[in-house]
């Protein structure tokens, strides 16, 4: 899923500016799973805004809405009435959701309420970990299904570096050393010999570094 977290309230307040009618609109897919932008978070954010705005002595009406998926056009018309009403829209979607919503409603002023972080997983309640960089050339088959491009702080393909200690990364004790994970996984699979092989430089042209990417599937086009 796409993992995001909330922007500080002060930043959201600043981006509302002088608007008198504000819509907080969530997305009930990825950002709901990571407890940043689902129905519940829309309600929390809207209440926090109302309280803060009232404290400032401002009369601002704040409405709430939530779409099943902000990044898919067919779900967007549902919000038409609220979108037309609002002077400013705080989207609790991911970066793709914010852009899809703004593109669908070109007259609406949409601002982000979240900082989109990464593609990751929920490893335990309240803990999300980055697992995929969308590099466009999946190498997981070679590395025992642990991604060094994403999970090694230095993206080492022939790792680990000299900073791996007790299974943790030198950058932070909160970060697992990807290469310890790769080592343990390949050891369990009886594939340690693979680590002796030289992994040549990656082809980053398939990644975002190549260009903003578009996928066109003729069989799915109308």
């Amino acid at each position, binding site marked *: 899923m796409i993992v995001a977290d909330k922007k500080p309230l002060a930043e959201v307040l600043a981006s509302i500016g002088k608007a008198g009618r504000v819509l907080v609109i969530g997305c009930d897919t990825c950002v709901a799973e990571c407890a940043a932008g689902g129905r519940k978070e829309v309600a929390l954010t809207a209440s926090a805004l109302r309280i803060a705005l009232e404290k400032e002595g401002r009369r601002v009406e704040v409405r709430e809405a939530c779409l099943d998926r902000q990044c898919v056009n067919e779900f967007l018309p549902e919000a038409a009435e609220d979108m037309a009403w609002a002077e400013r829209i705080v989207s609790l979607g991911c970066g793709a959701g914010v852009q899809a919503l703004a593109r669908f409603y070109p007259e609406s002023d949409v601002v982000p309420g979240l900082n989109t972080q990464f593609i990751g997983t929920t490893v335990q309640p309240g803990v999300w970990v980055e697992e995929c960089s969308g590099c466009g050339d999946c190498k997981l088959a070679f590395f025992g299904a642990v991604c060094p491009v994403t999970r090694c*702080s*230095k*993206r*080492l*393909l*022939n*790792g*680990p*570096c*000299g*900073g*791996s*200690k*007790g*299974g943790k990364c*030198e*950058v932070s004790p909160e970060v697992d*050393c990807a*290469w*310890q994970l790769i*080592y*343990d996984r390949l050891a369990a699979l009886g594939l*340690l010999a693979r*680590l*002796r092989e*030289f*992994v*040549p*430089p*990656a082809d*980053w042209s398939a990644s975002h570094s190549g260009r903003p990417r578009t996928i066109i599937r003729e069989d799915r086009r109308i």
Partner: protein
Amino acid sequence: MTQTSRLAGILAAGHFAVTAECGPPQGADPGPVEEHAAHLAGVVDSVNVTDNQTAVVRLSSMASAVILSRLGLEPVLQMVTRDRNRIALQSDLLGAAALGIRNVLCLTGDHQSFGNQKSALGVFDLDSIQLLYAARTMSEGRLLDGTELSASPEYFLGAAANPFADPVEFRVIRLAKKIDAGARFIQTQCIYNRSRFEEWIKRAREEGLTEKAYILGGITPLKSARMAQYMKDKVAGMDVPDEVIDRIKGVPAKEQAKEGIRMAVETIEWLRGLEGMAGVHIMAIGWESKVPEIVRAAGLSPRPSLA
């Protein structure tokens, strides 16, 4: 300018090599590099020039290496993959060769979060092993993509090794990969934990790696008990056992520097007796003036000349 590597010559002749380290200044004045040179001239075989060590911006390693060359010292150019992509790295490798630099130490580099430009984008287009591979490929006349070079550079390639990091079992595998990729000499992390080092070099010997590359043991003299504790607690990849800290703590504060040097000299003597060792690399961080004393006390002075 040197046309062949003196370091390679010393090692090939079977001498126990001595290299030292020069950290370029955080400013545009070449003075500090010249000062290092004055301390190290005639004392060591070659001098490593660090490349924005610990991700702190400093005078470039290439410029510093040229300054050392002009003063008659042979540089070992350190290159990290943290800050430059393969276009810049290959270009700089060509530039180094054209400037007469033969020794290149290929590193990934400390993570940018340790330095003074914490908001920097970490490039890491290549890793250290891929950089070795790139340099070796270039010395065979081609760039990474296969483009033919109009003239092939010549390098004596080196790499770093940290026998003290985890996973332990991976450490010799990684050494082997570095040697396969083109490393002819290896400079290790500072050695304080002798038993762990001995275990590592034993495994390297068993794999035949000490026959394929020259291993230089890393030495950093401890200035004080406080420094020893700091290295143990705060420096990534460092392994300082308690008995080392206890020994330096055991002498009065004003005697600790002397004790640190004595310990460094003892470690050098111990390394000389260890099968598979080809030399030492002295990293006297901020204490370069003590290198001549250490080298003399270890009986490694004067350095042999290559006729």
